[in-house]
């Protein structure tokens, strides 16, 4: 591991003029970004090999926030382990919980009451909006624009308040449980969500005005971090990262769960394959999420919010896999059960881990300044990668 910035001189590569630092010159720099760097949005350590300003290699060093969640889950019951998963992708905690609950329900073969299904989808989409807003603000800040961050957080706070009222938490929700949701929605929920939709619709246009059309922003994003469709699939990229490269991978469309097959929405695909395309996917997804919530918010069926399940859940012997679409991509839960009250082995296929693996390929040959732009559009959440 490289402790500090250092210069590695390889005698074979030194040009006759000596180690001049211009592009194509002889010296090769190794610099560290992180583990404590604002642009990595957490404790991610990138070791970057540079030739002048050109990136030759990017090597992620992970594990600064590794908690061995998979191992931990092996000693937790099927009711308990879901709480730990909120701590992985903390910006999509509802959706993480959802994926885990779905997997347990698959094993137990319980029917979820329609009310719970609709509540779950609304919560998922609110989470997606909140997550994309944070990404939007933070990414603009990475590129030097400070204002968007406050705009994004202003609306995100509204979502957090709505969540807090119903779930009692603002970040690690733990609201979805096997069989449904933990508690019924707050009496104010529908009204507040509707108010939010009206407010948010005008704000998305504001986001476009502030950032999307900005010439400096476009110049920094277009053509940066190119990722072809084939590479996106090969690297296992999912979510907006892959959809910016025209790879269709929206689990909500391909393998619909809950009521996603009954609502109308589009899978957003962009053809640019660059950072700007990935940016546009997320911005357009905000509007789709609003569309889904609009269709459901007045049509929450009456009835139970939770199916009747036993106090101690025991999954039959076998293997169960469920996949959901988080704000970052495909989240998979793989449970191997031996028939007991705890899983024998549990595996979380986190979207960020695969998306990050494509970073080196995307940015190789680019400039150091473009790294931040490309990395910003991957929407990395480090606990999701390290688990």
């Amino acid at each position, binding site marked *: 591991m490289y402790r500090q910035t250092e210069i590695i001189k390889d005698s074979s590569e030194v040009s006759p003029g000596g180690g001049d630092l211009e592009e194509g010159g002889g010296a090769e720099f190794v610099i560290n970004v992180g583990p404590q760097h604002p642009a990595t949005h957490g404790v991610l350590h990138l070791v970057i090999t540079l030739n002048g300003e050109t990136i030759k290699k990017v090597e992620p060093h992970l594990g600064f926030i590794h908690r*061995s969640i998979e*191992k931990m889950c092996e*000693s937790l019951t099927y009711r308990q382990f879901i709480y730990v998963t909120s701590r992985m992708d903390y910006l999509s905690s509802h959706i993480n919980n959802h994926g885990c609950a779905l997997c347990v329900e698959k094993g137990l073969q319980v029917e979820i009451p329609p009310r719970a299904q609709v509540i779950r989808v609304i919560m998922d989409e609110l989470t997606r909006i909140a997550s994309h807003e944070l990404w939007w603000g933070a990414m603009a800040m990475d590129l030097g624009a400070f204002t968007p961050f406050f705009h994004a957080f202003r609306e995100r706070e509204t979502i957090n308040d709505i969540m807090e009222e119903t779930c009692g938490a603002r970040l690690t929700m733990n609201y979805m449980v096997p069989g449904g949701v933990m508690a019924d929605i707050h009496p104010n929920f529908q009204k507040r969500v509707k108010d939010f939709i009206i407010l948010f619709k005008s704000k998305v246009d504001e986001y476009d005005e502030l950032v999307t059309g900005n010439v400096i922003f476009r110049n920094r994003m277009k053509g940066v971090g190119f990722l072809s469709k084939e590479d996106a699939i090969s690297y*296992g990229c999912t979510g907006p990262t892959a959809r910016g490269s025209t790879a269709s991978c929206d689990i909500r469309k391909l393998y619909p769960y809950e009521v996603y097959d009954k609502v109308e929405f589009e899978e957003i695909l962009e053809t640019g394959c660059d950072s700007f395309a990935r940016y546009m996917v997320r911005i357009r997804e905000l509007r789709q999420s609003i569309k889904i919530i609009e269709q459901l918010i007045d049509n929450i069926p009456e009835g139970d919010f939770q199916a009747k399940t036993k106090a101690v859940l025991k999954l039959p012997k076998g*293997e169960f*896999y469920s996949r959901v679409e988080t704000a970052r991509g495909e989240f998979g839960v*793989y449970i191997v059960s031996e028939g007991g009250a705890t899983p*024998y082995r549990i595996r979380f296929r986190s979207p960020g*881990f*695969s998306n990050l693996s494509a970073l080196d390929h995307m940015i190789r040959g680019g400039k150091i300044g473009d790294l931040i732009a490309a990395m910003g559009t991957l929407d990395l959440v480090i606990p999701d990668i390290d688990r």
Partner: protein
Amino acid sequence: MTTEELKIKITELLPSAAFEEGGEWLTVNIGSADWLSFAKQLRNEGSLFFDYLFCLTCIDWKTHLTMVYHLTSTLYRHNIVIKAKLNRDKPEIETVSNIWKTAEFHERESYEMFGVNFLNHPDLRLLILPDGWEGKNPMRKDFEDPVNMIKL
């Protein structure tokens, strides 16, 4: 392809493949020595075209290790699960990182967590665990760490 059609096709390609019943998707047990050539066929055969490896992991069964590969085709949308049994004392299997690039990171994770040695892997080093960790594999069932208490 439906599961039945897949079954016929897989038997054609690899007669020694054993099918496992009960899973959501077609599950195929293969010998670890067959994996590399079989993986190439899965990826490149026109009617199979499994181009997306969405989950790669390992399971410690105390007597042996099992590598599990979840594959899907983005063209035909069929899924398959491949399992290969490995010797627990000397787990070795060919890398597939040149077929599915995502495998490079996932194999590094399995390497450090389970001690599986991926033959011909371009860069088999620790990824998540800190430097100097070599030798102990935290995700194995017999791993104990009283200081950090992974087991709650």
